[in-house]
């Protein structure tokens, strides 16, 4: 099909990059926002704007809450078709309780899972969750959407499209495409070392856009490669569910062997038993970590086979000071508190795996590294955006001469995915501040409305991009770029003002008087984005007025 290797790579880079690039923009942008997802949650849920807390007392605070919890409505809806018979009014056989906290979270997440009587698949479980204030045990209202950790974050790995896991598969293909685009890009880039530091904005649009594309791709190449690669590794179980299908018998065999080896029972005994003091077990775990020279906080607490003689409590160390995730689990018999098992040091393969996944999932405490990650992610966005722009610039004159609409369509889609995506993100923040605290009965939950408005905002931006794109079919720039940049600037400033008006937390307060960096950080980031967008819009406006070919729009491509 191709006369040489370089040509083949150029074809793959161009066409896979173009088609999957639209998905990759969302992955990189919302991935960048996800670095500070919990801080965005604080901005979106003013009631949670207080300092992070360590894991509270299980015995006095958490246990009564766990005993009160039941499966969520979503879980029950999912299970209704998967059981032979009605669902019980109350789920009493508890498989597990879990409490998870991070150094960035002032709220505590609680998870529960329950046996489902009459289930067709014995592995099915009913699941419940609740978010509480760890100082008091009071739950956050259910309809408060955590815009960072429950919307932007899942958006970047699943496009929030959970029907048959379709979103996961699309993102997976996009991830593979990213790797292919990086390798093929290196093959295509003849002067990769000579042009390492080269950016010539004063040259023709095509040349300067290509320079920027190469620069943002090459300088952060290890970052781009590792994030796409580790993303695929993290979801390898979804993409290649080998051990749950073809090798399932082997997996079951291993589970039995492992239960015997570790002493952690796989199944319930069927005999009731009380729960000893979990606080004492957590304290003992901390003592043992300190004795090993790795003192730490409790990050994750789980109780398995709740209420049963085979029940056990697992205490895991929060992974704040190293790349590898929460780990170093210590397990105790639930009924008596006696030590069952201390997880042994990791094997070589396990260390590599947890390093790779930990690198991506970022449980560590390191503010500089997090901001450097955001920088890398935004460079990725610029790389993809400049890729689209280069594609259009290279072809629009020929397409105009031939009467083709190809460049016009790609350009309109590019506006949608670059500035349009920014507008969608800003829309949900505005909606979050403007929607009333409690909605009239019969209306969808507040969190759902915010999501609808996000998608509506994006659709509107797309419509605008297409309607304004006629000049591209004549070989001229699309005015929608400039117009959406102005919209981004205006709405970003509006978001900061709305935060002030609706919560009283203006920047002078969150930076100086009553310092609260999560909210101040989001506000400052919004203002910086507004400044960049306004600058880009002015530049585009001047070029359009002068009739000169516009400067690279890449400044507008990130916020």
């Amino acid at each position, binding site marked *: 099909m191709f006369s040489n290797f370089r040509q083949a790579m150029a074809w793959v880079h161009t066409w896979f990059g173009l088609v999957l690039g639209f998905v990759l923009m969302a992955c990189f942008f919302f991935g960048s926002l996800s670095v500070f997802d919990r801080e965005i949650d604080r901005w979106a849920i003013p009631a949670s704007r207080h300092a992070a807390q360590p894991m509270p007392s299980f015995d006095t605070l958490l246990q009564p809450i766990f005993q009160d919890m039941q499966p969520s409505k979503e879980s029950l809806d999912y299970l209704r078709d998967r059981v032979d018979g009605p669902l019980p009014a109350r789920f009493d056989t508890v498989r597990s309780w879990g409490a998870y906290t991070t150094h960035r979270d002032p709220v505590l997440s609680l998870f529960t899972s329950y046996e489902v009587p009459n289930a067709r698949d014995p592995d099915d479980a009913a699941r419940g969750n609740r978010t509480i204030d760890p100082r008091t045990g009071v739950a956050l209202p259910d309809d408060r959407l955590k815009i960072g950790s429950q919307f932007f974050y899942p958006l970047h790995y699943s496009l929030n499209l959970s029907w048959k896991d379709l979103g996961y598969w699309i993102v997976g293909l996009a991830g593979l495409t990213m790797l292919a685009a990086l390798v093929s890009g290196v093959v295509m880039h003849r002067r990769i070392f*000579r042009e*390492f*530091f*080269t*950016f*010539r*904005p004063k040259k023709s649009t095509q040349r300067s856009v290509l320079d920027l594309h190469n*620069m943002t791709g090459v*300088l*952060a190449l*290890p*970052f781009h490669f590792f994030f796409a690669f580790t993303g695929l590794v993290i979801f390898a179980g979804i993409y290649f569910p080998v051990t749950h299908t073809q090798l399932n018998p082997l997996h079951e065999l291993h589970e039995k062997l492992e239960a015997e080896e570790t002493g952690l029972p796989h199944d319930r005994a069927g005999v009731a038993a009380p729960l000893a003091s979990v606080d004492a077990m957590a304290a003992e775990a901390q003592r043992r970590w300190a004795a090993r020279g790795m003192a730490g906080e409790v990050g994750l607490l789980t109780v398995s086979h709740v209420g049963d003689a085979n029940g056990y409590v697992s205490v895991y160390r929060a992974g704040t*000071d*190293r*790349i*590898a995730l929460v780990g170093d689990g210590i397990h105790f018999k639930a009924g008596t508190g006696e030590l069952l098992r201390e997880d042994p040091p990791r094997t070589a393969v396990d260390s590599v795996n947890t*390093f790779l996944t930990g*690198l991506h999932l970022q449980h*560590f405490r*390191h503010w*500089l*590294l997090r901001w*450097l*990650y955001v*920088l*890398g992610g935004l*460079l990725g966005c610029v790389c993809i955006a400049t890729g689209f722009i280069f594609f259009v610039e290279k072809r629009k004159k020929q397409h105009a001469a031939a009467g083709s609409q190809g460049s016009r369509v790609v350009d309109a889609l590019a506006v949608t995915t670059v500035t349009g995506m920014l507008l969608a993100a800003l829309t949900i923040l505005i909606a979050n501040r403007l929607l009333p605290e409690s909605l009239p009965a019969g209306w969808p939950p507040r969190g759902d409305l915010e999501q609808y408005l996000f998608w509506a905002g994006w659709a509107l931006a797309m419509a605008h991009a297409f309607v304004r794109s006629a000049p591209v079919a004549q070989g001229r720039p699309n005015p929608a770029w400039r117009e959406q940049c102005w919209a981004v600037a205006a709405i970003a400033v509006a978001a900061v003002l709305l935060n002030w008006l609706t919560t009283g937390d203006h920047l002078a307060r969150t930076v100086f008087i009553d310092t609260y960096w999560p909210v101040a950080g989001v506000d400052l980031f919004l203002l910086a984005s507004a400044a960049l967008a306004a600058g880009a819009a002015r530049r585009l406006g001047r070029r359009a007025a002068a009739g000169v070919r516009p400067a690279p729009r890449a400044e507008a491509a990130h916020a």
Partner: protein
Amino acid sequence: MREAALLAAALAACVAGMGWLALAMETHWTQVRPDAPTRAAVLRLRALGGLGLAAGLALCLRVDHASMAVLVWVMALAGAALAVSLVLTWQPHWLRALAWVVSRP
């Protein structure tokens, strides 16, 4: 506070290292100085560049656990290279001090 200072020093070392490596290329040297670089100057620039980057790594290792420090360093290299590229594009004379270390004009 000490950590912040060490990390700032690490970033500075990486920027200096990248700056020297950039100046070792004739196209960029001539953006900063009118004369062409001598062979000796180029070698010295490459050596200094390598030293700067290595110093950056060493400083990162003073602050964090090895697995984390390496990541911080790799990301800092990307940031430093970006900074040097942008400086070369818009204010190349800012790198005059780095060139001066290798050869007086």
